[in-house]
């Protein structure tokens, strides 16, 4: 199953830059980090686009809408099917369509979503594509931060790290819930691994801002835009957050993410008991 984590896939197309008969092969100039690779979402590619790639000398980037890793009614009764139909099917899809429309006229192509976000954030002076790109990534991350029969407790190394950085799991939980309840406006609440301080931390971001732009590694996020909870909870943010913590949060995803993060951030030697 495609656990996208916001990244896209490298497709090995049959020599996309191969020359048409009678023409010299022209390699388009793409950034070195994406050199030679085209990132596309496998689900949404059509034969027509494949054909166009083989003929075109310009690389066009398209992003696709990834499905949540569960059916739309799988999170009931904590997040209704209707909410997901609108939130994913309409709002998230809307961001994808908008970004693709913008990219059709832009020079930003051949990037992974993460690269696109960092580039378009432009050090705090965001380009117009930023909002759409970041919201696509944030929502992909959000669907995967939840699961049916979620909640309960993390385990193993992740639990140890939480206990180390927050004192106890319940401290972390209270902190997270408080941050969400006192949120001003639209945005997201995150559990991130701070790369410089090498510890877990709770951060809040406004609107579409994603901690990737600061080089931190997100572990879990919670959508605090009103569209995320209004149909199910109206203005009862407390109930929404508590249900998220108790029944939806996917510690499986969080564990996978922190395991990957440890390849980039040294969290120290594991305490292996000596026999």
């Amino acid at each position, binding site marked *: 199953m495609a656990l996208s984590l916001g990244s896209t896939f490298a497709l090995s197309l049959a020599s996309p830059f191969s020359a048409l008969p009678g023409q010299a092969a022209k390699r388009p100039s793409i950034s070195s980090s994406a050199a030679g690779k085209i990132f596309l979402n496998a689900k949404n590619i059509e034969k027509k686009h494949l054909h166009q790639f083989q003929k075109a000398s310009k690389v066009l980037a398209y992003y696709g809408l990834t499905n949540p890793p569960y059916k739309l009614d799988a999170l009931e009764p904590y997040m209704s099917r209707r909410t997901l139909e609108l939130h994913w099917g309409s709002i998230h899809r809307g961001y994808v369509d908008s970004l693709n429309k913008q990219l059709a006229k832009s020079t930003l192509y051949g990037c992974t979503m993460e690269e696109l976000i960092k580039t378009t954030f432009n050090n705090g002076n965001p380009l117009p594509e930023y*909002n759409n790109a970041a919201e696509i990534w944030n929502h992909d991350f959000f669907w995967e931060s939840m699961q049916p029969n979620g909640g309960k407790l993390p385990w193993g190394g992740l639990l140890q790290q939480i206990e180390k950085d927050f004192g106890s799991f319940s401290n972390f939980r209270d902190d997270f819930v408080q941050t969400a309840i006192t949120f001003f*406006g639209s945005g997201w609440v995150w559990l991130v691994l701070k790369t410089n301080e090498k510890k877990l931390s709770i951060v809040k971001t406004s609107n579409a801002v994603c901690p990737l732009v600061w080089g931190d590694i997100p572990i879990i996020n919670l959508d605090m*835009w009103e569209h995320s909870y*209004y*149909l199910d909870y109206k203005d009862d943010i407390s109930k929404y957050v508590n249900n998220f913590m108790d029944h939806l949060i996917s510690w499986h995803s969080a564990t996978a993410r922190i395991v990957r993060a440890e390849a980039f951030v040294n969290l120290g030697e594991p305490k292996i008991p000596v026999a």
Partner: protein
Amino acid sequence: MAFRTLLAKKTLSLASSFAPASSSGDRWLGASLRQVRTLTVAALPDLPYDYGALEPVISGEIMKIHHQKHHQTYINNYNKALEQLDAAIAKGDASAVVQLQSAIKFNGGGHVNHTIFWQNLKPTNEGGGEPPHSTLGWAIDTNFNSLEALIQKMNAEGAALQGSGWVWLALDKGSKKLSVETTANQDPLVTKGATLVPLLGIDVWEHAYYLQYKNVRPDYLKNIWKVINWKYASEVYDKETADDTL
């Protein structure tokens, strides 16, 4: 009710530092002879119409939650922040004073903005949606060419606003010019210019329309003009533009 409780609290704390207190009954007497600084807190204004009166443009369900829950919460949190501010000022705790500013701006702004918003709306059978005439009407034609152009501009800016915020028809007290402004979250219009006065404000937070219009904010914006209270906007305009004819 909250006001009286606060008054009692303030009175008690001041009296205890001066008057020899034997029983709580005596404190009232001692305190009433002194100058007590009282804290005026905000209260939820009543809507000048029923919750369902703006249907089918804005549903009664939305109006009820918007007024009784959202606006009330802003007021409660604003009052709490005011109390804390008062205590911090009394103690001379400058960093606490500064730290409270964002809560005051957000919750106080929410209270200010929504108070204006309820006045900006009127049921259609009471004049809601009726276009502005005379002074404001001419000013709109001068500044925007036509009412339709103004509405289109406000709708475009409202729809383009990312996240939560407000779209305003603003009057600059100094230049007497009209303009369309947007503010983020609950920032009041004055954050865009100290001389700006709000004639109309449209709440584009999702809570203002989501239950009815879902994520189609443009539909909400298109329809809300049917219940906009231009009479109120005209009154504010006339008052502000008449002020300097002294």
